[in-house]
């Protein structure tokens, strides 16, 4: 019985991953545009750092190369994190737009399988896209990653996956709560994360309330630890505290977000919000 149920859910999980792959393949032109947009954004950040010296604003205490590396790692990581976050958060919006939402929600599949299927593809695709951008950026700016500890960076990436999924699922709830404004609210959440998580600056520069709020964002620990690993060669032992914090956040955020999603789904079914598009 349990084996059958597991097989059923595993088959559905493959279905969601396969569906996402087919969608991206069919929307390849859009994906090319987004890839170009992300690449241009990262390049702009890189040139912004290069331009500091021409303005006579060379940062004190650190070399321009270090500042550039700091910003570019932030930009690259944000490309990955925001893309994964966006894809998960828009799971509901996209289906409502296509008109398939009722079919997916009517299917005999657990919601966790549905959400994890979307997440799994988003993670793989996000990594591939960030890697492609990295392949352009690293040689173009002649980034020195000779001190990088890739194992530590990988450890943090893996640990960050769980809280990232949790945050994405939380945001996917918004279009369920409000078909009219949920999508815009998801954008707002993404913007707040960008502000609070120290993507382009250490969060210590933020005013105290924002600084404290930044400490609650898993992306803060992800960015900080990955920078430590890539810029200063922090060992796996050195990034372990950050990894532990990220895992603990994930263990709260994933079940919490799935529980909230189920509650929001029940509310949408009570109020008839599942189908409505505006």
């Amino acid at each position: 019985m349990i084996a059958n149920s597991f097989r059923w859910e595993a088959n559905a999980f493959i279905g969601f991953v396969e569906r996402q792959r087919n969608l991206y393949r069919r929307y390849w032109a859009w994906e090319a545009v987004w890839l170009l947009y992300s690449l241009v954004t990262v390049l702009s950040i890189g040139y912004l750092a290069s331009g500091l010296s021409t303005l006579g604003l060379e940062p004190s205490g650190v070399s321009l190369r270090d500042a550039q590396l700091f910003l570019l790692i932030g930009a690259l990581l944000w490309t990955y994190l925001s893309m994964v976050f966006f894809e998960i958060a828009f799971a509901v919006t996209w289906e409502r737009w296509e008109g398939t939402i009722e079919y997916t929600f009517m299917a005999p599949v657990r919601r966790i399988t549905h959400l994890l299927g979307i997440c799994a593809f988003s993670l793989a695709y996000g990594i591939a896209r960030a890697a492609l951008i990295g392949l352009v950026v690293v040689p173009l700016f002649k980034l020195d990653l000779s001190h990088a500890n890739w194992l530590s960076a990988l450890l943090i990436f893996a640990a960050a996956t769980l809280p990232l999924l949790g945050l994405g699922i939380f945001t996917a709830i918004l279009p369920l709560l409000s078909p009219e404004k949920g999508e815009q609210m998801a954008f707002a959440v993404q913007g707040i994360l960008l502000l609070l998580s120290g993507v382009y600056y250490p969060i210590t520069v933020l005013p105290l309330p924002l600084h404290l709020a930044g400490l609650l964002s898993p992306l803060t620990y992800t960015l900080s630890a990955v920078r430590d690993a890539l810029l200063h060669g922090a060992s796996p032992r050195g990034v372990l505290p950050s990894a532990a914090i990220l895992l603990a956040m994930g263990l709260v955020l994933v079940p919490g977000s799935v529980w909230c999603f189920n509650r929001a789904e029940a509310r949408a079914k009570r109020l008839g919000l599942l189908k409505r598009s505006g």
Partner: protein
Amino acid sequence: MLVRAVDQVNKAAVEMCGITKRFQVSGRGLRRRPPVEKLALDHVSLEVATGEITGVLGANGSGKSTLIRVLATLLTPDEGKASVFGYDVVRQAAAVRRHINRVSVEAAFFKEMSPWENILYAARLYGSGGAGTRTRVEAVLDRLGLPRETLDRPMKQLSRGQQQKVAIARSFLTSPSLLLMDEPTTGLDPRSRREVQDLVNVVRAERAATVLLSTHDLAEAEALCDRVVILDEGRVLAEGTPQDLCREYATDGQPATLEDVFLRVSGKRLEEDVEEEEAGS
């Protein structure tokens, strides 16, 4: 397992008792009016026997789609109880979902994906999708008169009728015990309509599926349905076999048509109402 199968045959496919559903309709614009309550289903009680094709007849806005959505576990009723093969649609929604599928008036697909990709996705969600799926899909589409080359073209390139046939194929391939069809032939040309209707009969005959069909096409109801339920403003006004209803509402010894029956029980002409809606839309 055998006991379970026998149980399922003996149970009514659908039982609804006092189902009521209200929606809050809020005003739009800067000066929002206070929300108005719309009663979509008003204490609906009905039973659908296993293996039957039951038609739900009603004008647009009569509550047909709401009734089907409640059974599809997509809407939670405010009052009353509904079950599918004995499983409660609210408390045992997961069990209900394993027994049902639905074809809606609008063919809901990922429009950039091909029919094959859409059907494969649905098959995966219903426990299949492995080897042999493609052959089964081709066989059903052949039966529906859909050219094979359409299988790998994006859905958006298919006509409305072709999309609806793919929707029907999608639901048939998941082998539901209860097929919920919400105006499946609306907007189809006469030939496509006929092909879909033939397939409904095949599904019932070959797969012993129960079909709940909402329609405002009286000829379709008469041709396909063992029983019909007339719904208006969320209330069941009459139910029975088409023949019994026509006999019951006969006047001057002349048997009534379903249109006459609908006019008598609701005080409206169904065809006029539908034409008005279509002209307005």
